[in-house]
């Protein structure tokens, strides 16, 4: 018998831990021809804002070594259009929709979350307090107190499970995670992109239209893994690992390091059917560890044993 794959984030039950990350799967309809979207553990559609946003001027992405810089700038049609046009489609899928929102103020976040709480089609809400490409939002993910107050304000008006999506562009991400937990978050999504840039030295110009952008893809996986590990050590609520995940080994590493589930981001771009393959490969990976359920794996990282002494008797460097 294969191991149970289901996990819980607050009151939200996911059939499996493979989700897709905001901004990397459109509004799910785009992918319906290539991916059996209903098999996913959950879908996080592209972040929506109160008012429509045209997004940043091109170039919006630049490929870097094993990574991608983006400054899309939250191009979206606003919450009204989302509720009217995208939510009905998401609601008919077998996978829960975890709706990602970004506000400029605490009031905006709270209003949007309260409004979305009224819809059965919304499985949970992810607060994007970590987008590096717009002014506003990201500030809530930097200072622990501001983060806690924001979550508390949203929590008071929101009946859906609440996730806080954190930025790695801080000195101590676990402090921000702990603050989000204190504010009433049901889970932590980590990480959003790392702030970076790319330069054309011949033209002496930045390559991105917005000068700086967020780095994603395989290049950031070690950073994401470290963040997830630090957060999982610190909080009791589930952590959803995000960052450079593209193979079953990546998935298992995040689970072992403490993630309850993962989100696939950039890998959807260069390998559109990756999420289905990971789902297919999951049972064998659990079997390899002899696990009867995924719970046995989550956070199962063992402390590293003392380094073996070398011939001179001092620890190997």
């Amino acid at each position, binding site marked *: 018998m294969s191991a149970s794959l289901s996990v819980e984030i607050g009151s939200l039950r996911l059939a499996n831990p493979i989700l897709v990350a905001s901004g990397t*799967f459109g509004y799910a309809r*785009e992918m319906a021809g290539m991916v059996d979207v209903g098999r996913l553990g959950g879908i996080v559609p592209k972040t929506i804002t109160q008012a429509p946003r045209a997004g940043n001027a091109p170039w919006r992405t630049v490929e870097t070594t094993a990574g991608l810089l983006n400054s899309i700038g939250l*191009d979206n049609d606003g919450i009204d*259009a989302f509720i009217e*046009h995208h939510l009905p489609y998401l609601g008919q899928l077998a996978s829960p929709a975890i709706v990602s929102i970004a506000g400029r103020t605490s009031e905006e976040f709270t209003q949007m979350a309260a409004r979305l709480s009224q819809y059965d089609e919304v499985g949970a809400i992810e607060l994007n307090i970590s987008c590096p490409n717009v002014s506003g939002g990201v500030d809530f993910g930097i200072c622990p107190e501001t983060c806690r107050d924001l979550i508390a304000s949203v929590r008071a008006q929101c009946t859906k499970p609440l996730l806080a999506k954190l930025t790695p562009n801080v000195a101590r991400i676990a402090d921000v995670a702990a603050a989000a937990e204190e504010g009433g978050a049901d889970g932590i999504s980590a990480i959003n992109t790392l702030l970076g840039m790319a330069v054309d030295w011949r033209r002496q110009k930045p390559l991105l239209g917005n000068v700086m952008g967020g780095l994603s893809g395989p290049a950031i996986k070690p950073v994401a893994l470290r963040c997830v590990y630090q957060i999982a050590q610190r909080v009791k609520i589930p952590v959803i690992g995000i960052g450079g995940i593209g193979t079953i080994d990546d998935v298992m590493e995040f689970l072992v390091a403490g993630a309850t589930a993962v989100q696939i981001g950039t890998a959807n771009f260069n390998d559109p059917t990756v999420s289905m393959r990971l789902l297919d490969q999951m049972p064998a990976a659990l079997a390899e560890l002899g696990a009867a359920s995924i719970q046995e794996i989550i956070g199962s990282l063992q402390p590293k044993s003392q380094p073996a002494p070398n011939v001179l008797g001092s620890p190997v460097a």
Partner: protein
Amino acid sequence: MNENCNPLHAPYYADHAVQLTVEVVENVQLARDTYRIRFACPSLAASITPGQFVMLRLADMQDPLLGRPLAMYDVYRDADGAAVGIDVVYLVHGKLTSKLARCAPGQRLEVWGPLGNGFPGQQVDHLIMVAGGIGQTPFVALGKEYLGRQAYGDPPRQGASAGKVTMCYGARSAEYLAGVEDFRACGIDVKISTDDGSAGHHGLVTDLLNAALDASTAGVQIACCGPERMMESVATIAAQRNVPCWVSLETPMACGIGICFTCVAKVRQDDGSWDYKRTCVEGPIFAAEKIDWE
């Protein structure tokens, strides 16, 4: 749910796309820095139509990480005419194409497609295809289809026809001209210009277009692909002469399937304003007057 009710959905999602790991069958040089690569992919080859593209990258490689959009040059077939695979013609440009140029047969590629809208299939008297440099790649298949030499799509698309097909092909110099024999072989009237005068007309491809338009009578349709400035000039000529024109945009893409919002172009809306539209799922082919060139 009736998607036609949703004005936010793009018209050309990757609903018929497949993702495949394929092997290079051959990779031959056609001109300076220009190669034609062939790989087997029967279902994709059967369904793709002229102007559609695939995303392509080297399998099992994280650098370059992303696929690159490349137009279908032609479908290759077995003796019975059944689609076997596709040819792609590429210019060595950056990270992926320089690695691609060194690929030997047997090299594994990751491919997904068919993607995008492709050119419309219409009945016209005279189709004038205007290509700048590597922008020529969609036009062998388009010319063949419009001249009734080959049908594309599954089921094969009907309704595309032209009494005459002219190709105005501009390149930097003679050594960059690729596949001219392929165009001529299917009955396309090829006119050439080069920037340095090393072949054909010494000057711009738009000179060829103007001459072709002067010589042509009613029922012209222009199809254009190339550098943005050149497409803008062609669009301007088409507008001045009141000739319908399709442009195939070459906006860089990161996914090709509508999920990353990289490849946006300013597209005019019915109310006269513009909005950023994803060229991969709204295009890459647009009516020229819809594009805000800036």
